């Protein structure tokens, strides 16, 4: 399957839950509803012609207006790759854990919880792990975060 074929295949299947976006510059990227996350993840993994069994990456993005969560998945047998994402509001962002689909997402979810303050439902092990034990300054990866000893690089 080429990238174009993959794009139309995914759009045609899965009840239109994945809507293609044109911001992807190489691999196709889709938008989903946060509530569909577990269904979509399971469908992508179990689909016979996709077999997305490998989770590459999970990252959160702060666009200054909203938060976004981007999942990158791949297939080890079919050589396919795609991303899907959804947006979350700034206040009380919450996502579902998809540890049951790809167990390897465990630490990635902890990371977005810790650095972006996105709560992960049903994760079960949300503990601080990257920041110091006595950290009390909030979620440092947010764009509006600041601290007294945080020095920004001056514009040149």
């Amino acid at each position, binding site marked *: 399957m080429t990238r174009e074929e993959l794009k139309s295949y995914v759009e045609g299947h899965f009840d239109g839950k994945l809507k293609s976006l044109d*911001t*992807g*510059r*190489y*691999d196709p*990227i889709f938008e989903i509803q946060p509530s569909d996350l577990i269904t979509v993840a399971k469908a992508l993994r179990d689909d016979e012609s996709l077999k997305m*069994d*490998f*989770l*590459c*990456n999970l*990252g959160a*993005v*702060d*666009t200054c207006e909203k938060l976004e969560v*981007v999942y*990158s998945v*791949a297939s*080890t047998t079919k*050589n396919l*790759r795609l*991303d899907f994402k959804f947006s979350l509001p700034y206040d009380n962002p919450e996502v579902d854990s998809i540890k049951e689909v*790809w*167990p*390897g*997402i*465990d*630490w990635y979810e902890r990371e977005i919880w810790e650095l972006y303050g996105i709560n992960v439902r049903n994760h079960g092990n949300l503990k601080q*792990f*990257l*920041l*110091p034990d006595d950290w009390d300054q909030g979620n*440092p*990866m947010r764009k509006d975060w600041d601290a007294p000893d945080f020095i*920004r*690089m001056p514009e040149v």
Partner: protein
Amino acid sequence: MPDLRTQEYMVNMGPHHPSTHGVCRLILTMDGEKVVDIEPVIGYLHRSLEKVCENRTYAQCIPIMDRFEYVTSMSTNQVFSLAAERLAEIEVPERAEYLRVIMLELNRIASHLLFYGTTAMDCGALTPFLYGLRERELIIDLFEMTCGQRLTYNYIWVGGVSKDIPPEFEPKCREAIKIIGEKLDDYQGLLNENPIWLARMKDVGILDPDLAIAWGVSGPVLRASGVKYDLRKDDPYSIYDKFDFDIPTLEAGDNFDRYLLRIEEIKQSIRIIEQALDGLPEGPIRGKVKANFKPPEGEVYCRIENSRGEMGVYIRSDGSKKPLRVKMRGGSFNQLQVLPEIVRGKGYYIADLVAIFATLDIILPEVDR
């Protein structure tokens, strides 16, 4: 003794422990001498590289990427440049692609040699460490001759490479890979039949292929479990589809196979370098790229195969000269996650655990970033 009572207890290993290859803390639950469970605690090297990159221009990000995975800095340069090139649709001249492949493969060999040395040292053999690092210096010399640095190269730039190779590079490079190719037998002769080494390696730390894929394990660790998955062949980037090389795989998935597989990979890398040196074309080494170029709005996740598995970077651009978000993904992050799964319930000793940790080839900057 009728009422002998046993109890599990905790042992804290690290964060400053020579066998953790950096600063990682493992909280072990022990039953006598056997490890029952592990909980890795990371973050001792969390330098917030992602936050630093958000406030740098694309060209300034590359030296920061160097620090993300310093054992194979060339790969980090490559993955970031590739992502930025896909984002801004920049062409790379052919000579630059060849030079990139040569450097990437040399760096892979250097990393595997370091693996060979440190793993053997963790199991108590000091000689392989001295041997491995002696040959690694030959490769470091080549890098130094080209870009002036020994460790953090900043060599692969967006749109090409920073400098052309000097004329004496090619003979030196051929000589170095010849020496390394010959020494591989020595290396294996030192360890392969050593009973102490075999006791630590054979049938210890078995990783099941299904478990490995589910946990996102990649690279040599995955291939040692029998899954033929290598991004150089499966999702080719740069010009890897032009070269003729094999993807070695092994079946058992234990420590010993992970070690043997890396030795095999060195041989394949040598093959690639020879072909690349033979086919090296003339021409420019860098495309036309402005210093502060502005890619259009968009996002890309780009991945390459480095010596520790899939290395990826996700870049989100908002149309300005600085990226809105850079998210780095390293193979070690997943390899460390799967460590408790490998060890749990198998009754390994601490010395086995050290060997497993070493053969997974985890380095901590990739985990912590």
